[in-house]
């Protein structure tokens, strides 16, 4: 993130600022102001019998929170509707992050710290899950890109796959002169190459059952007992192993950048449903 910071100093009005630093932390400032005003109001206003969502301050904070939640959800629409105009998705992201985080304060004050086993607290808990998952998202967005860039070393995903396929061809060729029991091992390494897969596999950069690794170990063990010259095939396997490792790291980074959304987005919809239930029930049972 540091890059974006140094650049803005040099290039006034330039566009090269990260989403966290957008317009010199405009939305961070707004969010802090919102939190401060809410907290001050909460401290100086002492309702009887106690703080809850039903006071005028409670209603105000609740309305702000509800509007914010709906607006924060609209980021999903904004990023898909590529309309003309002077909007910047970076600005939206920046606002989404800081105003989203401000809900921790604003919505908590709205509750008046009254929690229970009911639909109201459900909405609050869901909101906190969404926010916490979002914090993970910020962390990944801020730390993964540079590592992903270093790891992929100018190669696109398609190119990585092509290279692996090319090495498979080399393996096939190098296996031609081998004895059948050795050739079978190589063939298995080719057939069982796995990249990606389920959530856990994507998050892991070294596969415990990596076919290439297994083949390498097996052939190394056999080399000691003589027979075929396994040197060339081992070196190809080694290269493939390195490539696979890089590709798996790439998959892992992509997964880290995406997977938190699989919590963040569905829970947001659950939150919207709970929020509607919360609002309707409050007014119904008034």
């Amino acid at each position, binding site marked *: 993130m540091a*890059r974006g910071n140094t650049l803005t100093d040099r290039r006034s009005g330039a566009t090269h*600022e990260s989403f966290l630093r957008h317009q010199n932390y405009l939305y961070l400032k707004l969010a802090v102001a919102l939190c401060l005003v809410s907290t001050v109001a909460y401290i100086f206003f002492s309702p009887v019998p106690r703080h809850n969502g039903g006071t005028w301050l409670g209603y105000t904070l609740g309305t702000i929170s509800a509007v914010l939640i709906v607006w924060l959800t609209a980021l999903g629409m904004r990023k898909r509707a*590529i309309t003309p105009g002077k909007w910047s*998705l970076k600005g939206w992201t920046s606002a989404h992050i800081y105003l989203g985080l401000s809900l921790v304060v604003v919505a908590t004050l709205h509750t008046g710290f009254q929690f229970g086993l009911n639909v109201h607290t459900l909405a609050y808990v869901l909101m906190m899950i969404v926010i916490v998952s979002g914090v993970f998202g910020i962390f990944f967005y801020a730390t993964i890109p540079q590592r*992903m860039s270093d790891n992929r070393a*100018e190669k696109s995903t398609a190119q990585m796959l092509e290279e692996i396929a090319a090495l498979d061809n080399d393996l096939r060729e190098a296996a031609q002169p081998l004895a059948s029991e050795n050739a079978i091992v190589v063939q298995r390494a080719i057939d069982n190459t796995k990249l990606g897969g389920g959530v856990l596999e994507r998050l892991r950069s070294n596969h415990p059952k990596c076919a290439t690794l297994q083949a390498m170990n097996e052939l190394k063990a056999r080399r000691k007992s003589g027979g075929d010259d396994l040197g060339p095939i081992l070196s190809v396997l080694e290269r493939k192993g390195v490539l696979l490792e890089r590709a798996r790291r790439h998959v892992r980074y992509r997964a880290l950048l995406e997977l938190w959304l699989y919590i963040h987005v569905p829970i947001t919809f659950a939150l919207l449903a709970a929020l509607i239930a919360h609002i309707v029930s409050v007014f119904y049972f008034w």
Partner: protein
Amino acid sequence: MSTVSVDLAILGSGPAGLSAAARAAQRGMSHILLEKTDHLSDTIYKYQKGKHIMATPSQLVLRSDMPFEAGKREVILTNWDKDTARHRINVRLRSEVKAVKGQRGDFQIELADGATLQAKAVILAIGTQGNPNKLKIPGGDLDFVQYTLDDPRAHFDEDIVIVGGGDAGIENALGLADPELANRVTLLQRGPDFSRAKAANVQLLEQAKEQGRLDYITECAPRSLEPGLMIIDTKDGELRLPCNRVIARLGSVPPRQFVEACGAKFTGPDREAFPQLSPSFESTVPGLYIIGALAGYPLIKHCMNQGYDVVEYLAGNTALKPADEPLLEAKFAHLPMRRSVDEWLEFLRREIEIFNDLSPLQMREFMLESDVRFYRKDDRIITRNDVGSSLFTIAQGSVLVEINPEDPSITVPIPAGQIFGEVGLISGRRRGATIRAAGDTLCVEVPRSAALKLMGTVPGVKRRIDRITTERMMKIIFGGDIDPARLNRILDAATLRTLKPQEALITEGEVGFDIYVIRSGSLVVEKNVGGKNVFLSYVPAGAYVGEMALFDNGRRNATVRATVNTEIITMPGDLFKEMLAAQPNTAKRVQEQIANRRRVTDYVEAQKAGFSGVVDMYTSVADFLVEQGLGEATDALLIDETLCIGCDHCETACAESHDGISRLDREAGHTYAHIHVPTSCRHCENPHCMTDCPPNAIRRAPDGEVFIDEKCIGCGNCQRNCPYGVIQMEKTPPKKPGLLSWLLLGMGPGPGQADHDWIDKQLAKKHTEAPKVAVKCDMCKGIAGGPACVRACPTGAAIRVSPEGYLRVAQAAGAEG
């Protein structure tokens, strides 16, 4: 053998020749249409199967007895075959013409098969393909030797030898070497490398060899051929190659030789020159007419109209106005003066010096592409710092150049008959000064492509423009008060040269006094510090280098290299010194510049010791960016990979903003110090893509964007000419269901570029044909808010920068590293 005698012989059965023959048949003239091959319209016949052929320019009406509208190659060819029969055109196929002798009333046409024809008039419509050079070895006439390749997919499991390592040969080899076809392909090249071919093609070829898909042999020559075997002389001795197909791509004899053998003259010795023609397309040989691509008209509609017109002229219909007459009328209609089109053309030709040598036909052509503009006193014609590459000529009145941006009242006049705007034309840089009308003024604005064509066809024009550009550049750089006599001496002594990318203009440590002015392109200045080249500065077109040596006894203290193809004006140092002595003001300015440059070099020199990280990083990042073509970019997309999360929203936004095709490939391209240059248009100063666009569909917009307009005919020249691979040939996808239909109902493929299967399926459903056209970044021209890729980036990784800007990016990266 009996001798046939006709009124009119037409050579070549392409669109121009066919149209002429149809008119002759309609008029009942005795005629013959001679075609070298065994089918009509060979150029179009050789297009790939199913190619969509366009009918541009759309505003030009078609005037021909042959029908023509945009459509598939097969449909057009079938229609022409039918109409040829319907008009009872007298066609003679397989009739290669060896020679045409004589003149009006008495031409003898000798054919390759020995026959001779007599004709009163001859129309040459043979196009620009030329005759392929033949493989002249024993067995070279065997039936498996061919000179073209229609469809590589028609060949499976064959031993194929390709002779000739030009672009055509390499492209054929790559097509045939597709692993699915299982051909064994070998390419033979006479020279030690592939210097005639484009770098991108050579790279693909080398890659293919590395991957074992094909083989090539350099420094070799085929010796003989027999069925199934080719014997080759290589530098290591004889080689016997299994071979059951030979494709010889040995270049072709240009049709110019043939035309000159007929006695017709060309406008000049350059490759771009065209035959000299009268307004009725008659060459310098009376009775010999030249039309179509050979006459300089590559578009089908032009060719067909000319075929019609030329026969009408021949038949005595002198009142016939060319089909483009209404277009020209419209160009002149808004002007306050009333003249007929012919009067206008003659007036402009006479009044504007650089048009003096043009033929009426060339005048017509230039005016079709140019615009006549009328200005009142003080109207702005061009504005300083605007982007523009067109050339202005003054037909009447005069203009004032504001030489001091601070004070518009200080001006230099340019009188009628002269030109201005030529710096933008030559260097592609922004306009250097605001120019306004001195009184009622009539100007002709010639777009860049037409101006370049003009310079190519009329050598006098190029000389004049070159001299004027140099003169004006000198005036801008060294002040307008320079003594005219001295300036003329400098201009006489100045020479023009072109540097290749990376070529050194000045080498550190050598002795030299010359001063260099950059006419187009750009340079980088480097200094060798501790065995490493340290980047000092970037010098754009319109600036000069070399002046420091004048004060250092001629010792050069830095190396200056070209970043791209760069044109340099060399000026002798003694003349420059003389000028400084005579002009204290200029001398002061030069001294200031020298002081500035010296500060930078001294700083670098002083920092030698503790100088590792920062400057190294800066230098290497700057080097990288220049290498990536940003030296000639005017606006490029960079991605800061410390921020890029790989969401590809930039691509999605691009596709959404432009007919569903993304014009950038984020992941592809090179990265250095986390600055990534994706595959996306750099909007070059002198765009390579513009060099050969038959319908002139690639233009530069007022804000600097290079874009392709709707005139594109899908020929793919720009895609091949772009060294950065940023132009794609794509079908325009059909409209997708809206965002909400996708979001809520799952209809359509969603935002972004739809996959090709979906596009093809939709197109098939609608029974519409979508031609492939060239697609590239237009910087979201005309879309409010600017480039969608930048607006849609959620983290701020995507940025657009100009050359000055990217060096700042480099500096920042360096400062950090």
